[in-house]
Structure formats: structure tokens, C-alpha cells
């Protein structure tokens, strides 16, 4: 095998970076950020339309822009970035060349063509069918074809990732087991393969139906299989962004897992159980039994939730252990107070962790309770939940890791370091507001995907309580703040790539502290205890239990039904 491909040794981390992998990471990350900017702007327009006092767009444009928002951020931005993460976690972390870089480029081009094709279909105005494209709403055939091409491209990327794992093993570029981050990325890639398979099963017939080759698609079947794509693709994100939490805490603080076994076991639970979550969307649908709903919605007795709750301890726990090893040992929380809060990679990662757990995680489990879903399904509580998971969780984690990738892969220093420093806070607070106010409005019954809840021209109008309009206004304000944070991110990243000072052989960035490298030795006496993390976890647990039962109380107040 030809192994004479060019590589460089990164001065700051000692990682061996091959040119082929580097270029692909760059290309995927740049395209991802472009689509984030576009999709984010659409999102801002949606929020400003739902703010009664502003009511920015007319109805037809609102539904068009909402469709474009969903496609561009939930699919295009995230999956392009995930390709960059997969190539980084395989080729760079294992110090190996990328398997079949030409295939990887082919996948990249397919994804790009698909993304543009679907966007064109949406912007032409005859494909305002939302991200979910539920039949019998019909989009232009190119809408479905674009998504199919995009998915094929992503599938190619996953297999390049698997191929690189094999190559690294064969060429012995590392010893022992793959690093935890690579393990997590592998979990994400495996889930991606399941997910894309579900997508193919439902979208190929829908594509054929869109130009009349198939006459009828059952709505219940569509929803059941489509959510095997729609929800599972969010589980790729969970596995990917949790890997990034581990990656950032390792690179910035030299943290190492408290226990490899526990962290890997938690990832393994995702492969086994996360796929059942398609059920979360079917809890109030006809024709499906309660037994099926209860088993699937709980990921078989909450075993995937168990995985996430474990990471909720192990990620801050390893940070605490590394910090204590450095001497931040006073009291319960000195390790946290003296964490590098001015480093946007760290602050972004920690805010992502907190918001994903407290807002996204708890609300997700609660609304996924079979009966409680009755008071939440399709209200704006649902986007409230997934903006906490996908925006505050995944997107913020991806932004945070970008602050590491710019010096590491693009070899540029960050421009506007002051902006970078505050960006995760601005974006984080904005997104937290978006989530909380949408959830609040949802508990008052405000529907999602709805142009005008004041329903001025309806024959039988219904007045929502004033508090609902207040919440939607506050949601608009929060979206503005998140928008500012998003623009800051794009300006810093694009500015750094274009105009940042070149890093030749500098070792200024992303320096790990050698003292922390021996933060823990598994199972030995030296294993530091993590009392601060246990307190955090206890606070999380109490909030979880209280919020869970408060919602049962709300449920008990509605009309009896059976």
C-alpha cells in the first residue's frame, strides 16, 4: 500500500495530520458553516414572524422559510459538520491517512448537490412541506431527490470513516483500543447507517409517488418509518456532540475518562436502544397499541436515557478530576470556578453540556411519556425541546470544537479573540431563552408550525391567553440574541480562515497541560474523588424528578379519557 502520502506533525498536539484528511475536514466544515449561516437566518425570520408585534413574513413565505430552516440546519449544517468530525476522529486522532479520499470527495459532492437541489426546490415555492414532508403534502420530485442524494453522500462518508478505522488497525498507527472520542464517533456513524436506511425505505417510495409512479402512501406508515430517519438523525448528533465534549475536555484540560469502561458502555447503550425513539412522534396516533408505545418510547426501560445520564456524570467528572490534579482542590467547586471560562472551546462545551442536560434532556424524557405526550404533542413545546438539544447541545458543541479546529486544521489564529470569548455565552443565553419560552408557550397550547395564533381571519377564532403572546415575543427577543451569537461565530470563523495569522510551527494554541496527563489512573488509589460533580448531578436528578411529576399533575387535570 502506498503510504507515502504527505503529512505534517501538529506542533501543539503531536498529532500526525495527513493532507487528504485535512482538506476534507476543511471542505466539510466550511460548507457546514455556510449552511448554518443560511439556515440560522431563516430561523430568525421564523421567530420574528411568530412574534405578534413584528409578524415579519406573509403566510406563504412563512411556511416556505420554515421548511428551509429545518432542512438547512437540522440536516445540511449538522451532517456536513459531522462528516468533518468523523474524518477528524478517525484519520487525525489515529494518525492515519484517510481511506479512499476520492470516495470521500465523491460523497462530499453528492451531499452538496443534494443540499442545493432541495434548497432550490423549496425556494421555488412549491415544496413548502416542512422538514417532515408528511404525505399527502406533496413537494417537487427534486425536493426528495435532493435529500436522497444528500443521504447517499453521507453514507459514503460513513463508509470512508469505517475504512479508515480498518486502515489504521492494519497499518498499526495506534496501539490498543481506539480512543474514546473515536469510539463515540464510531457509534455516531453506526447510528447514521441505520438512520439513512430508514430514510431510503421511506423517501425513495415518496419520491416515486411525487411524480405519480406510486399511487398512495399510507400516512401512518410514512410517519412511523420517516421518524426512523427524523429522530434517529438527532441521535447521531447526540453521539457526535458527546464525543466532542470528551474531545474538548481532553484537548483543553488534559482530562481523561474516569473509567473507560463506563463511558464506552454508555455509548454502547446508544447503539442498542436509541433507534426506538421513532415512537416519540407516534404517541397520540391511531392504530398503534399502548404496549408498543410504552416499550419503544422508553427505549426499552429508559436504557438510552441511562446512557445519557451516565455521560452527564462522567463528562463533568473527568473535568473535575483533571482540575483537582492541577491543584484546584479547595471546597466543592474551585475546579469549576477556575476552569478556563475565557476559552470559547471550553465555555461553549460546558454550556452545551448544561443546557442539553437540564433543558433538552429532561424535557425530552417528560414529553416522551406516553400519556403526558397528550398535553404536549405538536405544541410549540416540541421545538422548545429540540432547540435545547440540537441548537444548545449539538450546534453549540460544534461551534466550540470549531475554535479548536481553526488553529489545528486550518492553522490560523483566531481573529477577534474578544468576540470569540463572549460568543458561546451570547449564543447560549439566546438559545436557552428560545427553548424556555417556546416550552412555556407550548404548555399554554400554542401550536407549532403556525403562522398566526391570533387567527384574525378565521371563522371560529380562538383567543390564546395573553401570556402565550408574551412568551412568543420573548422567544423572538431570544432569537435575536442567538442570531447575534450566530453571526459572531460566523464572522470569527470565516474571518480567521481568510485573514487569521498563519500558524507555522507555533505551539501557542490548544496546549495540553502535561501535568494533567496523569490525571487519573484507573482503579488506583490515585483516583481523585469528584464531590463537586456529584453535587451537580444531584441537583440535576432532583430537578428531573420534580419536573417529571409536575407534568403528571398537569396531565391529571385534563378531561378523563380512555
Amino acid at each position, binding site marked *: 500500500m502506498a503510504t507515502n502520502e504527505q503529512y505534517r506533525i501538529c506542533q501543539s498536539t503531536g498529532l500526525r495530520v495527513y493532507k487528504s484528511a485535512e482538506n476534507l475536514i476543511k471542505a466539510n466544515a466550511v460548507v457546514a458553516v455556510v449552511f448554518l449561516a443560511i439556515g440560522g437566518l431563516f430561523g430568525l425570520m421564523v421567530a420574528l414572524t411568530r412574534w405578534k408585534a413584528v409578524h415579519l413574513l406573509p403566510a406563504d413565505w412563512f411556511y416556505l422559510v420554515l421548511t428551509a430552516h429545518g432542512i438547512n440546519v437540522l440536516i445540511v449544517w449538522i451532517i456536513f459538520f459531522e462528516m468533518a468530525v468523523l474524518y477528524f476522529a478517525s484519520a487525525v486522532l489515529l494518525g492515519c491517512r484517510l481511506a479512499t479520499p476520492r470516495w470521500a470527495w465523491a460523497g462530499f459532492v453528492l451531499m452538496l448537490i443534494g443540499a442545493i437541489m432541495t434548497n432550490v426546490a423549496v425556494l421555488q415555492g412549491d415544496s413548502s412541506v416542512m422538514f417532515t414532508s*408528511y404525505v399527502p403534502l406533496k413537494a417537487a420530485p427534486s425536493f426528495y431527490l435532493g435529500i436522497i442524494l444528500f443521504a447517499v453522500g453521507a453514507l459514503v462518508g460513513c463508509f470512508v470513516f469505517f475504512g479508515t478505522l480498518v486502515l489504521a488497525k492494519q497499518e498499526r498507527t495506534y496501539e490498543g483500543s481506539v480512543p474514546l472520542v473515536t469510539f463515540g464517533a464510531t457509534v455516531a456513524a453506526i447510528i447514521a447507517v441505520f438512520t439513512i436506511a430508514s430514510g431510503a425505505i421511506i423517501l425513495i417510495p415518496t419520491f416515486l409517488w411525487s411524480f405519480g409512479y406510486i399511487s398512495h402512501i399510507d400516512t*401512518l406508515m410514512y410517519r412511523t418509518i420517516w421518524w426512523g430517519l427524523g429522530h434517529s438523525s438527532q441521535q447521531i448528533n447526540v453521539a457526535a456532540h458527546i464525543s466532542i465534549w470528551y474531545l474538548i475536555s481532553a484537548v483543553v484540560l488534559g482530562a481523561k475518562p474516569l473509567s473507560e469502561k463506563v463511558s464506552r458502555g454508555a455509548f454502547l447503550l446508544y447503539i442498542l436502544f436509541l433507534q426506538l425513539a421513532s415512537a416519540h412522534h407516534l404517541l397520540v*396516533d391511531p392504530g398503534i397499541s*399502548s404496549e408498543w408505545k410504552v416499550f419503544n418510547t422508553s427505549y426499552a426501560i*429508559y436504557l438510552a436515557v441511562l446512557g445519557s445520564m451516565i455521560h452527564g456524570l462522567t463528562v463533568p467528572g473527568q473535568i473535575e478530576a483533571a482540575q483537582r490534579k492541577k491543584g484546584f482542590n479547595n471546597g466543592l467547586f474551585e475546579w469549576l470556578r477556575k476552569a478556563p471560562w475565557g476559552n470559547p472551546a471550553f465555555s461553549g462545551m460546558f454550556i452545551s453540556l448544561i443546557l442539553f442536560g437540564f433543558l433538552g434532556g429532561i424535557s425530552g424524557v417528560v414529553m416522551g411519556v406516553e400519556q403526558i405526550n397528550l398535553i404536549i404533542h405538536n405544541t410549540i413545546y416540541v421545538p422548545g425541546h429540540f432547540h435545547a438539544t440540537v441548537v444548545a447541545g449539538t450546534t453549540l458543541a460544534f461551534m466550540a470544537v470549531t475554535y479548536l479546529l481553526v488553529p489545528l486544521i486550518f492553522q490560523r489564529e483566531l481573529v477577534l479573540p474578544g468576540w470569540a470569548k463572549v460568543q458561546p455565552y451570547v449564543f447560549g443565553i439566546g438559545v436557552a431563552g428560545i427553548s424556555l419560552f417556546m416550552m412555556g408557550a407550548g404548555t399554554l397550547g400554542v401550536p407549532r*408550525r403556525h403562522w398566526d395564533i391570533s387567527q384574525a381571519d378565521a371563522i371560529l377564532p380562538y383567543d390564546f391567553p395573553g401570556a402565550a403572546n408574551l412568551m412568543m415575543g420573548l422567544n423572538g427577543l431570544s432569537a435575536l440574541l442567538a442570531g447575534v451569537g450566530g453571526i459572531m461565530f460566523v464572522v470569527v470563523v470565516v474571518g480567521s480562515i481568510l485573514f487569521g495569522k498563519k500558524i507555522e510551527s507555533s505551539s501557542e494554541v490548544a496546549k495540553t497541560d502535561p501535568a494533567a496527563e496523569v490525571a487519573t489512573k484507573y482503579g488506583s488509589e490515585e483516583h481523585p474523588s469528584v464531590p463537586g460533580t456529584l453535587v451537580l448531578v444531584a441537583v440535576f436528578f432532583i430537578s428531573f424528578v420534580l419536573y417529571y411529576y409536575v407534568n403528571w399533575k398537569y396531565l*391529571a387535570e385534563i378531561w378523563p379519557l380512555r
Partner: protein
Amino acid sequence: MSVTPPQQKVWWNEPVPKSELIWVIVAFIWGLIMFFMMVYWHAYGEQNLSNESYRITAEDYSAKTEAMVEKYTVREESGYPVVHPPPGSDVYLIARLWQWWPILELEKGQTYRLHLSSLDWLHGFSLQPVNINVQVHPDYEMVITTTPDVAGEYGIVCNEYCGIGHHQMLGRLYVVDNGESK
């Protein structure tokens, strides 16, 4: 570190720190509690979504609804018939682009079998302000046995996107005290 291969090659034999072990056990037990909470509510709770549903064509469902409307209409409002069916009976509500039809008038504390189906696309039955939300499919008829327990005027919002008229798709439902009509 998490970005390098495990320090101990045989990492799977390392003992698990106590803090992690305790949390895994607590989280697992909490999962069990949450799982059995759903099962418990099926046995003892009063709000469980019905498992009763049938396949039906739009024509048949439409015919059943119209038969009910013909028999029990008590007045008209904004061009909609207001139907006051007897307590305990089968009550039909049509979802279609873009209306909920007809207006139903139910008696407080009485139990009804409420049928829901769509004649065309997917719709979302969202009864406000009580905030009961159910997905409504074409070709499927769901039957919910329910007992309205607070009198008043309710709005039915569509909360599944169904095209450009989606936000105008509103219906109404009255709950009145026994034997009365509004």
C-alpha cells in the same frame, strides 16, 4: 486522555469508581420507576389515550358524521351546524382542509365516544384551553371515550401543518351543564 488510546490496554478489567457505580444504579432505578409509571397510569390513571381505532374511507366517515348532524343539530353558528348528541352516544368530528366540522355541544360530566378522522391530509386535533392533542390521520378513525368535566367554550386548533390555510383551521366545541343548551 479521551483523544488517545486507553492508558491501560486491558481497560475493561479496571474497577469502576464508586461514584460512577452509584450513579449508574440510581439512574437505572429511576428508569425503572419511569417505565412502570406509564404502566401504573394505564391501570389507575384517568387519562390514557384510546387504543380503539379502525380503518375507514373518507366517504364512510363523512356519511356517518352527516347522519349525526342531521339527527341532532340544534342551531347554526357562522354557517356551522351546532350538534347536541345524547350523552353516551357516538360523536363524530371531521377534520378537513381547513375546518373542524361540525360544532359539537356536549354535556358536562357525561361520557361520549368521540370519533376523529381526516377526509384528506394529516391534521392535529388540539383542544384549547384544556390542551388535549391528538394526531388525526386520513383513512384511520380513532375513538376516544371522554368525559368533559368543565363547562365552557373550547377552541379546536389544528396543530399539524396542512398547507396554506392551516392557521385558519379552527373549530369550536361547547360543554354545557346537564340538559341545557347554550
